[in-house]
């Protein structure tokens, strides 16, 4: 009989079933680990390099803890039902990145290079700004659907951001890739990192409106739904822009990222596999076409196919060749299964960009296969939590935006890590959160902020259905 007395509590808990637990305490507990692990790693580097615990350990620990605390409080206050994994995972990556950037600052070889400046303090500043950006997104973006209003403004901003590096006097050509702009007094900025988010907003807004036309008005041919000619317009435009980026900014990564993001969102919006086929065909044609005549992209491909030859040419002093990729591969190989231990590798041999584009090689050498697998799985978790957010989102705009941002994040991780590990040709992008670079840190914290906002909206319990005093008086009005 006791069972029957308990059963009503199950039946009456309908409101509880709607309102998932907020999981804020889970997030806090995970954050403790996300702060503690980098602090231990920091101590480890100091002990390995200088035989002493680094003097800045306490302030670094407090700083990171403070940042994590601020972010957590912002989530607790402004997005209480948000996904509990995203913030701790991003914090962990950011913290580990700081440690490895600090570790590379200690390299005598890198210190002897011209233009050396300690990167860790600046990265700490960028991280603080990034967390600020994150909090600002949560505070000011009460509902992500507001972004829908800015669909075409987003498109315009994205185009401006993408074109900026080409503006004479503003753009900077750094080692072949024209993806930077110089802002006097502030330093250099990678507008592509921000364009990623703005474009996702545009695509989400645009596709939400056009999805039916794109999905339904099509002919069937050989099992594929062929879109009408005029519906091909948008994908052709995005494709053309990607190709232009590739040609003028010589940046394979950004180009691939934008086009890939668009195809993913198009597929999700229309549920038509034919778009994927078209997308793959078009990107293959574009990439092969550009790679066969654009010299910078061509040399990147050649270097990917034979890194050792590239190394030899570079050593012989032939201009336009770089030994970085081969050095990165050696760093990975020398790390082996368990790595040399933090602070004990020689990834500084990569020299330029060792702490930005190539930072994964330092992880590979010093933390080994085990460390890289853990890092990649953390990225994988962030992406999957993002797609989970898209699944849970109740509005199509939210779904599209969440999957666009997550997909872009996944593509970026793949393009950068694949490039550094020699899986695909190298491109000039940075590993989100771990690599040195203000634009990247800021943009990715904003990206996590938007995902958290969407997940909060998605997991927020539906408002209790208010008993409508007029309910009984509702009548069906029939036309007379």
């Amino acid at each position, binding site marked *: 009989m006791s069972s029957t007395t308990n059963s009503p509590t199950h039946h009456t808990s309908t409101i509880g079933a709607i309102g998932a637990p907020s999981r804020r305490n889970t997030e806090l507990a995970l954050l403790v680990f996300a702060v503690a692990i980098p602090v231990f790693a920091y101590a480890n580097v100091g002990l390995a390099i200088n035989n002493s615990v680094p003097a800045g350990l306490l302030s670094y620990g407090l700083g990171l803890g403070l940042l994590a605390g601020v972010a957590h409080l912002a989530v607790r206050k402004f997005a209480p039902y948000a996904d509990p994994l995203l913030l701790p995972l991003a914090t962990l990556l950011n913290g580990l990145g700081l440690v490895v950037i600090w570790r590379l600052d200690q390299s*005598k*070889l890198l210190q002897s290079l011209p233009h050396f400046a300690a990167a860790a303090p600046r990265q700490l500043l960028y991280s603080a700004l990034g967390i600020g950006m994150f909090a600002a997104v949560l505070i000011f973006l009460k509902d992500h659907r507001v972004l829908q209003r800015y669909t075409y403004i987003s498109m315009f901003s994205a185009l401006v951001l993408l074109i900026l590096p080409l503006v004479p006097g503003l753009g900077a050509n750094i080692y072949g890739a024209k993806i930077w702009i110089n802002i006097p007094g502030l330093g250099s900025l990678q507008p592509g990192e921000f364009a990623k988010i703005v474009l996702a907003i545009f695509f989400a807004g645009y596709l939400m409106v056009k999805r039916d036309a794109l999905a339904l008005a099509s002919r069937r041919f050989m099992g594929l739904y062929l879109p009408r000619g005029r519906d091909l317009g948008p994908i052709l435009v995005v494709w053309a822009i990607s190709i232009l980026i590739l040609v003028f900014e010589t940046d394979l990564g950004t180009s691939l990222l934008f086009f890939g993001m668009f195809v*993913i969102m198009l*597929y*999700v*919006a229309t*549920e038509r596999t034919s778009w994927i086929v078209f997308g793959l065909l078009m990107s293959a044609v574009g990439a092969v076409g550009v790679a066969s005549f654009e010299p910078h992209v061509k040399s990147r491909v050649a270097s990917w196919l034979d890194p*050792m030859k590239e*190394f030899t040419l570079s050593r012989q002093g032939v201009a336009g060749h770089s030994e970085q990729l*081969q050095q990165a*591969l*050696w760093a*990975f*190989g*020398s*790390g*082996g*299964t368990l790595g040399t231990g933090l602070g004990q590798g*020689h990834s500084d*041999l990569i020299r330029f960009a060792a702490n930005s584009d190539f930072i994964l090689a330092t992880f*590979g050498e010093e933390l*080994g*296969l085990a460390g*890289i*697998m853990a890092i*990649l*799985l953390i*990225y*994988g978790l962030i*992406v*999957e939590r993002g*797609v*989970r957010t*898209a*699944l849970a989102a109740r509005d*199509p705009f939210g*779904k*599209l935006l969440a*999957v666009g941002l*997550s*997909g872009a994040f*996944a*593509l970026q*991780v*793949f393009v950068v*890590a*694949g490039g550094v*590990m*020699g*899986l695909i040709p190298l491109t000039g992008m940075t590993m989100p959160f771990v690599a040195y670079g203000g634009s990247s840190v800021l943009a990715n914290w904003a990206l996590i902020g938007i995902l958290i906002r969407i997940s909060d909206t998605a997991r927020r319990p539906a408002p209790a259905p208010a008993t409508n005093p007029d309910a009984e008086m509702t009548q069906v009005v029939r036309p007379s």
Partner: protein
Amino acid sequence: MNKPLRRIAIFCGLLILALLIRDNYLQYLKADQLATEKDNRRVSIERYANPRGDIIVDGNPITGSVVSKSGDFKYKRTYKDGAMWSPVTGYSSQAFGASQLESIEDGILTGNDDRLFFRNTLDMITGKPKLGGNVVTTLNAAAQKAAFSGLKAQGGKGAVVALEPSTGKILALASYPSYDPSSFAGNSTGTDSKNWNKLQKKNDPSDPMLNRALRETYPPGSTFKLVTAAAALENGLYKSADEATDSPQPYTLPDTTRELKNEGSIQCKNVPLREALRISCNTVFGHIGAQLGKDKMLAEAEKFGFNAEQFTPVRSSASVFPKEMDRPQTALSSIGQFDTAATPLQMAMVASAVADDGKLMKPYMVDELQSSNLDPVEKTQPQEMSRPLSPANAQVLQSMMETVVKQGTGTKAQIPGVTVGGKTGTAQHGVANSANPYAWFVSYAKLPDGSSPVAVAVVIEDESANRDDISGGGLAAPIAKNVMEAVIQSKK
């Protein structure tokens, strides 16, 4: 929209999976290959991360290691009396690699040798740094010093090799002019590269980095008559040192009208072997060579080690006794002319085989390899190489060589209380003998108890000296004498 979302989730998972697979390929399957590729600088960094083991002579290291001030290579090699020992040690340079013993025994010296694996693992567990092992050489410091200072005082190019006849141990191995391997042991482009470039043959015609004791072949001249005499005795052409030989004078080379001349106005017609060796008759030994023929001469020369590289373990060049010759060429080769050429090591081996009653021991310079805590890893056992002479014939040749020192061309090598046997040589070379001749002296010392502690070969080329003054007896014999004395003194 949820179905495509799930597929995108799978797609993103596949991207991560591709990265994981690639990473396993790089860091597991290919890791060892990548980590040990020669252009991977970590290999060199690792190599110089710990102090190198030492090369040891008479219980004292002749090498060392210091922490270098700059660069990513921690330890740099140093040498004591580098110029004197460089023909033995070779060099170990951060910028230019290693040579000779430094290169051949690199595994022991760096501690990477498989035989040190157990020791290294123990050290790793107990937290000690990996240390290199030592290479204990057979050399004799006093003999080496006598050899090098003798060459240096002489001032010309030359080399000295001393062996212990009963074992084949190399006691001295000197070459002049020489170089100090410390001067380019680091990898600074300023000093080390400059010093290295200065020593290269194209910048220094005297070629100081050539190891003349092992790697240069000289026409052996009259010292080769020892081999010809050994061939005559072994093939039964003559039974003793004192029977008259069948030696015409003047002697016309077979199949030609060219007369083979003796130096000066010495009387060589039908003189016995002892007298022919004492006054160094070309006609007698040229005729013996022609009588025995190419094949018998070649067989005897190869028993002494000609036409083969020696591995001490440092490789020596192969000495040459020509394989394709007509009869007049055979006669000329038998007095150390034509294409006959020998390393100083080779001629020391000839003297050593005679002194050891006809038994030739394989020459070697590494006595023992040790781990860092001085445990032996490998000990070299003396090894017989061949028997160019029967003991009886060896004793006949010994008595002939002793006559040369007692009352012939080699009197300057006499040591009181010690029996010394030797042979001088003055080898001509260059087009129409235009260049300065080489002065040779090969000898051995015998103690009253009948044992022979040392055999030595000295060669000197003195460009500044008057051509007529050069003779093995005058220039080379005193150095040989000092080296033999140094060995005998250190045995006492």
